[in-house]
């Protein structure tokens, strides 16, 4: 077990596992190996990979949309979709890979991984309440963090952060503008002791 630069290792890992499961595409940017698979093959791919990557790290999703209530919208136009992500890794070499698939927003559903990895149970419950994704075959798909009766799916980009509407944060003494108001010139901003000042 010697540490190797992640960039060189990741490309080899991505292409190896992409070939193994017949992925649509693979990438290894910034040392992060990632493969894309169709949603229909989600469970089957994980079952195949489990023998080589037995450690279930996490599962989550990304809401891709230009219609954002919080933060900045993505650059250019994006295809409206949920991207479901999971991360598996090996425990002898440390090799890890992100498995990604797209599902439609109109009917966000995907098969549950609970039959392959027991640990998917809570991660899927979290993704279900946060994004409104239905994990078919999940034994107990009820809310995990949120109270019963909570309306909406907070990590959807259309879900506003209400406290921010009521009171701007963190107030007028802020060092930097919020991501959504990026038109201010850098030099005009007030300075504070904590700001990174490495250039000086």
């Amino acid at each position: 077990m010697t540490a190797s630069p992640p960039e060189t290792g990741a490309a080899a890992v991505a292409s190896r596992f992409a070939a193994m499961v017949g992925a649509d595409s693979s990438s290894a940017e910034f040392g992060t190996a990632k493969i894309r698979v169709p949603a229909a093959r989600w469970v089957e791919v994980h079952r195949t990979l489990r023998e080589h990557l037995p450690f279930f790290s996490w599962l989550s999703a990304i809401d891709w949309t230009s219609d954002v209530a919080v933060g900045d919208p993505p650059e250019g136009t994006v295809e409206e979709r949920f991207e479901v992500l999971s991360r598996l890794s090996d425990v002898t070499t440390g090799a890890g890979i992100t498995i990604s698939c797209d599902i439609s927003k109109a009917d966000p559903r995907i098969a549950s991984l609970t039959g392959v990895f027991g640990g998917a149970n809570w991660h899927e419950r979290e993704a279900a309440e946060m994004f409104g994704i239905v994990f078919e075959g999940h034994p107990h798909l009820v809310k995990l963090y949120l109270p019963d009766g909570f309306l909406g799916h907070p990590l959807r980009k259309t879900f506003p952060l209400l406290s921010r509407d009521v009171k701007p944060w963190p107030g007028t003494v802020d060092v930097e503008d919020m991501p959504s108001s990026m038109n201010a010139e850098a030099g005009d901003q007030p300075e504070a002791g904590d700001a990174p000042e490495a250039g000086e």
Partner: protein
Amino acid sequence: MTDRHLLAMHHSEVQVSVELETPDVTLSLGPQHPSTHGVLRLVAKVDGEVINSVDPVIGYMHRGYEKLAEVRTYPQITALVNRIDWVSGFANEVPFMVALERLMGLEVPMRAQYIRLVLTEMARISSHLVFLSSYPLELGAATPLMHALRERERVLDLIEGVTGGRFHPNFNRIGGVKPAAGAGSNQKKVRQDLPEGFLDQSRDAMRNVLAVCDDMIDLVVGNEIFLERTKGVGVIPADRALEFGVSGPNLRGSGVRFDIRKTDDYLPYSRFDFDVPTGANGDCFDRYMVRFEEIRQAARIVIQACDTMPGGELQAKVPRVIKVPRGEVYVRAENPKGEMGYYVVSEGGRGPYRLKIRSASFSNISILPWLLQGQLVPDIIAILGSLDFVLGDVDR
């Protein structure tokens, strides 16, 4: 009548000649209970002394960091991630910073990396000392707590001396660590480095930590009650641990020699000589002993790093306003509780489009429903405590 039933009856003083009717009783433990390390509620269905099923109820501490991150700039998020696992606040910052530095292509000065590494290991020592002393307390032994917390306070003093914060250092900056002190635009900034005498004090503190470990080994592991309550209790087989994403000392307690410090290069651990301790049985006792040995190894690393601390800058050159190029990156770290990772999706702005936080305690306790099934009620606390979780790290 299961074996566990018979065992429980066998241990009781009263001889029971008839089979008792013990219909299912729901036992609600918490959410406010001293043994649950915060606000965790366990709803257990018990049949006599035997647990039929457990449903952990979490979310009382849920602060929605993944949502909050979407409306903050990258430097502002550092203050948030401190508060995920607050027993080792510094360690939470590092993988987040490394993720951003990878996206920005920054080369972090070696001195800054060493300081990160030293403070991360000190965070590990302080986190493990809390566990190693509070766990016996839960099983009825109060003395180890006094020994360990005294040394932990010295380690926290060292962290505070460098960063200004005992629990929430907020000391990492993109490209390195905080180099400047003093506020106000008119004042000349005073360049801040490690406090005078820090390296010597650290070496001394590490020797004290090693000494207190020796004291505690005698106190705890020589105690028969402790052994009875932990050996063979709460066994997690390696394959179960892996599929539930149980990581860190809990995984190594089950015999899996996996340490992200050895496989990844988020900090220059390859320059240091240290061992990765593992257990053999995966029981509460092994999880306890693995952390004991990890403190020793962490102290070794700190002493080596203090001996070889390079000079130079504390932060790479970064623009005044941080914009992170478009891309996706996952960086994980071997934190005291296990694998802590950040999946950062940047769209080129000043805050992330999406930040997925993978915290160790969440996965570590997700195994509880499986692990507690069929166990005895008195073992709940022994098993719960042995997983060493922090509710802030569970709920995020």
